[in-house]
């Protein structure tokens, strides 16, 4: 499997590897995938009182493309509001990393992971409040 230079760069120098405390009220955690399918992504966001994602971390079990997709997403969502981050599409990830067709599922997984992290954060703060959740937490 030939990888693009961007995949190799993210794979060899992954951005934002690590974990936040799941119990922290400012943290939203999304875990998607399954070991049986060959990839599991855990993506975490730390949201400030203004509802802006100020930090993101990931851990991924999967192929190089899965690692690169999650690394890229953590970079992209930093500084975005939750609503902006919700707009992220897997096609943007796939295009940026020039993923071949057999690796498109990695970008879909990364999109699912960020959405799951946002959902988790919003649930902690009452689902109905949506984007205003951060203010409620404050």
């Amino acid at each position, binding site marked *: 499997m030939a990888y693009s230079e961007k995949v190799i760069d993210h*794979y060899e120098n992954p951005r934002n590897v690590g*974990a936040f405390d799941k119990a922290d009220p400012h943290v939203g955690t999304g875990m998607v995938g399954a070991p049986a399918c060959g990839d599991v992504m855990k993506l975490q966001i730390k949201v400030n009182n203004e509802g802006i994602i100020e930090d993101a971390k990931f851990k991924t079990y*999967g*192929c190089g493309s899965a690692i690169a997709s999650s690394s890229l997403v953590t970079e992209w969502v930093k500084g975005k509001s939750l609503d902006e981050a919700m707009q992220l599409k897997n096609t943007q990830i796939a295009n940026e990393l020039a993923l071949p067709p057999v690796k498109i*599922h990695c970008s879909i997984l990364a999109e699912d992971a960020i959405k799951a992290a946002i959902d988790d954060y919003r649930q902690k703060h009452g689902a109905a409040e949506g984007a205003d959740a951060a203010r409620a937490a404050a």
Partner: protein
Amino acid sequence: MLALPVYLDYSATTPVDPRVVDKMIPFLREQFGNPASRSHAFGWGAESAVETARAQVAALVGADPREIVWTSGATESINLAVKGAAHFYKERGRHLVTVKTEHKATLDTMRELEREGFEVTYLDVDENGMVGLDVFTQSLRKDTILASVMYVNNEIGVIQDIPAMGEICRERGVLFHVDSAQATGKLPIDLASLKVDLMSFSAHKTYGPKGVGALYIQRKPRIRIEAQIHGGGHERGFRSGTLPTHQIVGMGEAFRIAGEEMANENDRIRMLRDKLLRGLTRMDEVYVNGDMERRVPHNLNLSFNFVEGESLIMAIKDVAVSSGSACTSASLEPSYVLRALGRSDELAHSSIRFTIGRFTTEEEVDFAIDLINAKVGKLREMSPLWEMHLDGVDLSKVQWAAH
């Protein structure tokens, strides 16, 4: 100075031994004759070289040279043996037996015969990759015409009990084909005593060139097969097509060297393999796939739990290895061989095959050990599954969102 990448994928293919190359070159230059040409010295010379090679191949496996038919490789040999015997003996019965962990060359040939109306039993293996003799015996029926089993598995290197299976088949009048692509030069084979009717060989797994192989077709008792390739009636009609003299000469020389050097070479390779095993199992959660006793010394197949195989291969690109077999490594499916051993999907996804050979050095093995220890550590730091494992989470109890 170590040349990178280090090659530890000898079961995918081997480099051609320089001594083999030297023997081949004259047959590409001045001795270019067609071995089927009967009217001049060019042909006679080529024919003589082909017959010398036939005797060399026969000698390694204890066969009569007249029992060896040249083919383009083990895949063709397997096709010729299995389809050829099934077609010839179809009036006797329509049932065939093979094993789930066979190479695709056998499995896909069996699938094709199923489409033609044959019935095939695919035997399970135990957790070590071995076919139980009782399981094998019970699978043979009155209408079974042929069983096909590989001597040495390409992914996990385990050695099936071919002598015993041969006895079982012969007693029941079932033809027995053995795929020995991964066996030559790794263990002694004596077809004079084995109850094997058909055996497939490849040159390029034993330091010969790609594109040539052979099929052993027993003479006593005589085994009949239907040809699959028709034409000029070469190879007594079993396999038409002009013989590639240079490749055949290469296969002969490669098998001659294997016969002479196998014993010493295997001791050295076993020492290196065991060193690699010790160096890699220093880490936690590393599992050997396949029986470690009934196994060729060249093969080590390990699962690095909580690390995905493809990303590990990418991380250790200075060491050339494979996950699963070379033929299936383009797919995203975990190894069907490891699945047949009952390995969990995680462990099957985390497997790496290391295969060592004639030109592997201790320095290369040391390099591989250090690199893999470092990279597995790094990938585990990045793995949510490793984190959960360290937290004491039982991954088999987690409800995963399947996708």
